[in-house]
């Protein structure tokens, strides 16, 4: 039937093929089946004896390698995390230590400064007291001189006026006035 269709398609050219179409040609069956069986058996032995154990072991090895690599990576990551934590801790400690040292230095400087200031204050006070004493001395000397000058002046005035110079009365009067 299919053959007739083919013949029509050829537009009148003689078709030399006879009998059934090649696909259903019984004369081919034994040969095709024989060689197909040979090919299948050959493939089966190639696969089961050589290829599959090999590929299977390769895949298993790879799976193992990947698993161990992954666990190694996990361990390394844990290590890295620990290292990071240790680093952070060290940094924090160093920062605290440096703060402590800075504070101590600051305190020491402040103490020195306070001591120097106190010393300077004491010196200044001493100088001031000394000065005050000198001023007082000079003042009292000056007071004495004023009384003396007043006495001498009073005596001289009395002498010039021609009065009797009573030493003690003059002294008393000057002292009462000047307070020397």
């Amino acid at each position, binding site marked *: 039937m299919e053959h007739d269709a083919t013949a029509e*398609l050829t537009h009148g050219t003689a078709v030399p093929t006879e009998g059934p179409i090649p696909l259903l040609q019984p004369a081919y069956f034994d040969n095709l089946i024989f060689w197909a069986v040979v090919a299948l058996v050959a493939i089966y032995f190639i696969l089961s004896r050589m290829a599959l154990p090999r590929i299977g072991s390769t895949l298993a090895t790879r799976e193992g390698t990947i698993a161990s690599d992954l666990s190694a990576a996990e361990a390394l990551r844990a290590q890295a995390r620990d290292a990071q934590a240790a680093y952070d801790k060290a940094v924090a400690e160093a920062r605290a230590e440096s703060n402590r040292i800075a504070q101590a230095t600051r305190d020491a400087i402040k103490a020195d400064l306070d001591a120097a200031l106190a010393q300077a204050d004491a010196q200044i006070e001493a100088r001031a007291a000394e000065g005050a004493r000198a001023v007082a001395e000079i003042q009292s000397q000056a007071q004495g001189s004023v009384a003396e000058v007043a006495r001498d002046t009073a005596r001289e005035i009395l002498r010039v006026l021609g009065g009797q110079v009573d030493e003690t009365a003059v002294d008393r009067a000057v002292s009462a006035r000047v307070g020397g």
Partner: protein
Amino acid sequence: MEETAHEAVGLTFHPLDQFQLTPLFGTGGADYNPSFFALTNATLWMAISVLAIFLLFVLSTGSRSVIPGRAQSVAELIYSFIRKMVDDVAGHDAGRFFPLILTLFLFILFTNFFGLLPLSFTATSHIAVTALLGFGVFLFVTVLGFVLNGKKFLGLFWMTDAPLFLRPIIAVIELISYFVRPVSHSIRLAGNIMAGHTVIKVFAGFAQVAAISPLAVLGVAAIYGIEILVAGIQAYVFTILTCVYLKDALHPGH
């Protein structure tokens, strides 16, 4: 042979000549009747498939590299693909049949693909070859089912969760469908491959007319692309159905 006819008149179509067997040594012809183990073009192209499988699966995997090369990773890809299919479809206890199923898959896949080369021969287009595969799977699975499960294998046809009066009817239908399996299994493969190859040849025949030859060549290219898909898909379908049948033999209960 046909060349004389070609010279005579314009259009000649011989879309089915590609399926003829020809002897490797000597001359054949349409009425060639090869002996049982004569070396034919079918022998040659099946041998090329076997050789290619050997090269891909044995030579490329020789180094057993943990980091595979291109050929090795293709081989491993196919291996894992079919292995997963067997495990998923037929169950984990079907692992011992994995080499058989991979053999079927590779034979069909490589025969289909090499059949797409011009001037080659496609063994899987012949019903004799696909029937060998289909009925081989059928017999294997049926015998295996009875050996593993004994009478319980017949539970495949006796639906215990169906109403009692329906069970005989279902059993008959199941029985018919079971015996149709190898037929559809083998005709599906041969039919697909044969049809595609024939359509390509018909398009190529139209290329003899100058006016429509560009269209015809485009058609050939388009059908060829589809045939590349079909070659892979039919190998996949045949293999996954084999796994389904195998599952019935291993676990007839469900």
